């Protein structure tokens, strides 16, 4: 009896200690195994020089984003599967999904010692929304409908209010149940007081509140950026290694050569040339998992025969049935893409293509394709050729040609790829609506919610609605989805909205992307998240 009660007492003591630990480490999310910060060599990861100064409101590409994500702690962070958990926030609450109250965890500091409080967030967001030159300004307008956010910007336009040292409120224009989920993105990171004195200098040497800080003289431009653990960080993402070196590479082949010889620990993208062999080369050090990238091609309704009328809808469906997605993903991509089943992504919560009406339009069915095409010809005879435009500065030619060939062989029409020299050239014509053909489109999710892609691409008048799709029924269902209190309700509304997309096909879904990566023999606990980024704080590296 005595023994048992002793054991119980011990267990109670342990769980109290665990509670205390998680209490200070994060809002109920599992804390990583704590311990002294590892010594030994830094983990190396491939990188490229960021295109802009390292300022959260002006960083929208992966290289700058990856570093900022490790230098800063937002209100929430994303776990590997895209679920969110509190990082710097203690609570984010609302009764109506429109008026939010956010409490910041007490006792946090930036790596320069200044406090992280409600002001740090409010001032940073006001600054980010103030200037149309900032690449992430749209987050305060399109991605999250902040009350007061406009593209013209201006000082303190957002309706944010500091209640006390650690509490502030946010007003949105309309309810958004996903609001906390969006807050993990770079643009919502807090900024210390020192930022506002000289943003440019800050961009060269950012001071954050995250698991890492930049090492002294750590940024050698064009060569590498070194970060070391930030010992003032108390959140759930405590670094398990002695630091990370982001190494600048010019080509993926060079990275792969270094990975094979253990000169590079983590490689985020296997080069095209090694796709067929990397799993054999690396064995269980190869990473191959789905990611939040959706690939498609879009047909603008101004293209002759492809308006959103009976003929156009028949032709769009015929073309979709004529594409052998299974074969193209196997042959061209070595199985590193998976055929699309809906308009979102399998790694985003709510993925459920089987229950969407009309999703069978993505099945390869030559007979049906021909039948639909003939029906359309009865309305207005086909003439001309079907082309898919792509930018030739990236490896798109192979799959575009294969897709065009598939269409050509099934429908017996003239179909081909239409190369543009570079991405800027392609987007300029798309944006001006002067592009004379269908064109490749893709979407990488900004935050892990179906509302991100559906809202940005297909809602009437949305910024990236390249297909000029406008359907009040769709807009209403989308609105219903974003204001749903639970994921189940949201998925129900979004699935009904997607059924309309399958009927009208503003874009033809092709396939989902995958993260193809690898790591060296020197590191362990390497995991890649839903956003294709390695989870660097968890990586351990043995001393050599």
């Amino acid at each position: 009896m005595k023994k048992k009660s002793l054991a119980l007492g011990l267990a109670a003591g342990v769980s109290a200690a665990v509670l205390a630990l998680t209490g200070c480490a994060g809002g109920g999310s599992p804390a990583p195994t704590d311990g002294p910060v590892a010594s030994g060599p830094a983990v190396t990861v491939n990188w490229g020089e960021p295109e802009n100064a390292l300022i959260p409101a002006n960083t929208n590409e992966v290289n700058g984003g990856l570093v900022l994500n490790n230098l800063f702690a937002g209100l929430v962070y994303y776990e590997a599967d895209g679920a969110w958990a509190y990082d710097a926030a203690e609570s984010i609450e609302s009764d109506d999904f429109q008026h939010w109250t956010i409490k910041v965890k007490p006792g946090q500091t930036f790596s320069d010692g200044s406090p992280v409080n409600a002001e740090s967030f409010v001032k940073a967001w006001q600054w980010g929304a103030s200037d149309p030159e900032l690449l992430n300004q749209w987050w305060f307008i399109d991605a999250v409908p902040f009350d007061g956010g406009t593209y013209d910007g201006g000082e303190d336009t957002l309706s944010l209010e500091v209640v006390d040292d650690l509490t502030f409120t946010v007003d949105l224009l309309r309810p958004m149940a996903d609001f906390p989920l969006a807050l993990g993105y770079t643009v919502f990171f807090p900024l210390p007081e020192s930022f506002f004195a000289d943003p440019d200098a800050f961009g060269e040497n950012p001071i954050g509140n995250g698991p890492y800080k930049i090492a002294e003289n750590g940024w050698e431009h064009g060569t590498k950026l070194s970060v070391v653990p930030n010992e003032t960080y108390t959140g759930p993402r405590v670094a398990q290694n002695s630091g990370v070196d982001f190494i600048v590479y010019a080509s993926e082949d060079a990275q792969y050569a270094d990975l094979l010889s253990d000169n590079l620990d983590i490689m985020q993208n296997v080069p095209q040339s090694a796709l067929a062999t990397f799993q054999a080369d690396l064995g269980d050090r190869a990473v191959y998992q789905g990611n939040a990238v959706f690939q498609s091609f879009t047909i603008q309704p101004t293209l002759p025969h492809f308006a959103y009328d009976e003929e156009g809808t028949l032709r769009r469906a015929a073309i979709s049935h004529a594409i052998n997605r299974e074969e193209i993903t196997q042959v061209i991509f070595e199985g590193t893409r998976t055929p699309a089943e809906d308009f979102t992504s399998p790694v985003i919560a709510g993925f459920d293509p089987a229950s969407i009406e009309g999703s069978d339009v993505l099945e390869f069915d030559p007979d049906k394709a021909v039948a639909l095409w003939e029906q359309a010809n009865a309305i207005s005879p086909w003439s001309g050729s079907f082309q898919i435009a792509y930018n030739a500065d990236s490896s798109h030619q192979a799959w575009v040609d294969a897709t065009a060939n598939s269409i050509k062989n099934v429908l017996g029409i003239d179909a081909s790829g239409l190369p543009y020299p570079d991405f800027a050239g392609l987007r300029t014509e798309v944006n001006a609506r002067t592009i004379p053909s269908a064109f490749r489109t893709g979407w990488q999710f900004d935050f892990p919610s179906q509302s991100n892609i559906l809202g940005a691409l297909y809602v009437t008048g949305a910024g990236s609605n390249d297909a000029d799709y406008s359907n009040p029924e769709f807009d209403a269902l989308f609105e219903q989805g974003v204001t749903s209190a639970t994921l189940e309700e949201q998925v129900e509304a979004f699935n009904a909205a997607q059924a309309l997309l399958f009927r009208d096909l503003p874009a033809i879904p092709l396939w989902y992307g995958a993260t193809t990566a690898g790591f060296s023999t020197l590191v362990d606990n390497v995991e890649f998240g839903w956003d294709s980024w390695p989870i660097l704080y968890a990586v351990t590296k043995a001393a050599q």
Partner: protein
Amino acid sequence: MTWYIVRRILQGIPVFFGSTFIIFAMVFAMPGNPILRMFGDRTPSEAQIAALEAKFHLDQDFFTRYFLYLGDILQGNLGTTYAGQSVNEILARTFPTTLRLALLAIIIQLIIGVLAGLISGLRKGGIFDHATLLITLVLISVPVFVLAFVAQWFFGIELGWVRPTVGQGAPWQDLILPAIVLAALNMAYVVRLTRGSVIETNQMDFVRMAYGKGLSRRRIIPVHILRNSMIPVTTNLAADFGILIVGATVTEAIFNVPGVGNELFKAINRHDMPEIVSIVTILVIVYVFVNLLIDLLYGVLDPRIRYVKK
């Protein structure tokens, strides 16, 4: 001589203006708006496009932009990239590395090329001559990137003799393999040129005279034959310099050398006007300068060539 140098440098001025203008016009003519590229698949709002175009002067006409750029250059400012980095800093960071790589390549191709050419020229028709003929034939016909990948895989990964890519700070030992790859093509030409030239010189009267006078081969070969055979090789070297820089762009990418070729490639992808124009202009100036140096070298090799005031 001094007058000649001054005149040549003055000739560089119109070359400078001409090249900046032409390159500027070419970049200007590239289709597409670089602002749209910055946003990826997302379409920015009109207000954002307008604000960013104003920021980078993209809303101005061609001549305004060209003169804005020239004004900066004359103040020693080569402009800033769209990312806000100073092009001066980028060049200061990357140029020394590329020059070291090019220098190493030139040294390698000169030493091996001239030596091999000399030996096969003196022993025309021998085994060595045939062997070098075969090897140079292979080197000339294989594209530089194939050679680079094979060398990287074989020496860097299979044998593990060197790092497959260039490490931080681009130390000399890491640059040797890329330099050999870069030197390979021109080395083949140097061998061929030296060989032909040596054979020709070897039959000249003054060489036969030297033999007849009883001079040792040890004196005749370097002083009489080699020196007189070097003029075509030197000319070739000047022309090669351009090829070296172009080759460096490919080689630098494969071996991850943080050099100017790498930077130029990325800038073209970004449509980064100030950076492209500045880098190419600097390359043109270097090219002009190297040609001047080579011309002066002729005088050293052959005292009959003199530069005098006309």
